[in-house]
């Protein structure tokens, strides 16, 4: 489903690469943690998968599509197959919960009738059916991340990328988000979570890919967050 073949990414010509000769395969329906310290290259990997960046070297394929070869006009359609959530939620602050989730359907021209059906269903899945009228700035961090999740999933993408989804949350909300991700994975979505939350990674016993200084140093089924220091 997701393949990285000898992928390198440098931001400058002479500096150290953010990713260096990384190869990785993630199959359909997997739940994978990508862990590592700040600056290890985890977020660069997410940006490459979202086609915010292109690799300096190597090849990335997602669902058989060579991501670097996508033409500019093909990128929006490609991104609709990948739901994504971020540490800072990235919600449209001046719109309410319903509008934020509905927006993901509007951009792919889903008829309003279907949107009115899909959005409440998705808000129920993330546990916020009664908050649909609230402005996002009125919500707690955990609630905002759930709205972000609902938005990421409303179009039924086969892949969900989560970049530090618990980074701004307290432990209780972090666990609730992780349980939601697990549930989403159980329903068939491939989930890739970039995090440095050791406690959660170690407790969930999923596949763990550890990145250090732009290189994959371990890749284990039911792995743990290994403290390299």
């Amino acid at each position: 489903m997701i393949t990285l073949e000898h992928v390198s990414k440098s931001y400058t010509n002479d500096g150290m690469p953010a990713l260096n000769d990384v190869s990785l395969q993630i199959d359909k329906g997997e739940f994978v943690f990508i862990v590592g310290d700040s600056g290890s290259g985890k977020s660069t990997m997410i940006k490459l998968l979202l086609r915010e960046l292109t690799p300096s070297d190597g090849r990335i394929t997602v669902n058989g599509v060579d991501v670097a070869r996508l033409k500019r006009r093909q990128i929006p359609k490609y991104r609709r197959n990948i739901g994504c959530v971020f540490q800072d939620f990235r919600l449209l602050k001046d719109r309410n919960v319903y509008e934020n989730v509905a927006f993901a359907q509007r951009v792919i021209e889903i008829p309003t009738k279907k949107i009115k059906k899909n959005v409440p269903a998705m808000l129920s899945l993330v546990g916020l059916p009664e908050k649909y009228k609230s402005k996002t700035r009125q919500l707690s961090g955990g609630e905002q991340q759930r709205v972000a999740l609902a938005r990421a999933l409303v179009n039924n993408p086969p892949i969900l990328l989560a970049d530090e989804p618990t980074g701004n949350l307290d432990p209780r909300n972090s666990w609730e988000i992780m349980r939601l991700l697990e549930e989403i994975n159980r329903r068939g979505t491939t989930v890739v979570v970039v995090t440095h939350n050791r406690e959660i990674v170690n407790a969930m016993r999923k596949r763990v890919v550890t990145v250090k200084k732009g290189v994959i140093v371990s890749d284990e089924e039911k792995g743990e967050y290994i403290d390299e220091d």
Partner: protein
Amino acid sequence: MKISTLVFTFKQGFKNIFRNKVFSLATVATIAACIFLFGMFYAMVVNIQYSIEKVETSVAVTVFFDDDITEARIQEISNQISSRSEVSSINYVSADAAWESFKMDYLGEYADGYEGDNPLAGSENLEIYLKDVSKQSELVAYLETVDGVREINHSDATANILTKINELLSYVSLGIIGILLAVSLFLISNTVAMGISVRREEIAIMKLIGATDFVVRSPFLIEGILLGIIGALIPLAAVYYIYNNIVEYASQHFVILNDLLQFRSATDIFHVLIPVALVLGVGLGFFGSFITVRRHLKV
């Protein structure tokens, strides 16, 4: 594009105005300021030109004829002159009409002594009015070659002064339009810079969700056009109000200048100003939005 998407796009464009109130206000103020300056300047220039035109049309070239000329020949010359492109109108003044006019203007009751006599016999003439006073010398040169013409009265000085004023007005207009354009560009570039910072995050989110450039751009363009229309209507109303008050005030308080100051009606001014201001407002709003959004589309 589906109708529901089109309706959504329009709604978003309209809502955007209220979402970023400060930005909307700044944009409307900028466009309104530019169009207000343009409107006031346009009204001023049109009125100056109108006054000059009035003066120009009152400047006539007078042609007198040989004593033995026939009425038929005068008519023939008159027809030839009328057919020239620079001629606006032509007026034949017979010797009798000239004498009647003279009596009325200068003699009054003292004219009784001249009863049955016309001291101005042989002074029949043609008064020629020009469309463009700068063409006067060209016409005079032609008239000098016409057979049967005895004398041509004209004022080079008046024609030259009016031509110079017209030229000066053109240069001043161009200069002021240039300055207004520079000021407008400066104001609009500042507003655009503000728009860029306001929209950066929002556009990035839309792009990550998978919105096409068209879907991202359309509401902002509609917002820009709406702000442009509002930004045009406000100064139009202001200029209309100010113009009518100035005309009313000037005609009431400067009666002595009424012959010199010729005001165009507000209808005449706004017949041109309304479409120009709307095109300018919509254009500024549209391109302002276009530039701000384009900067963030490459996500």
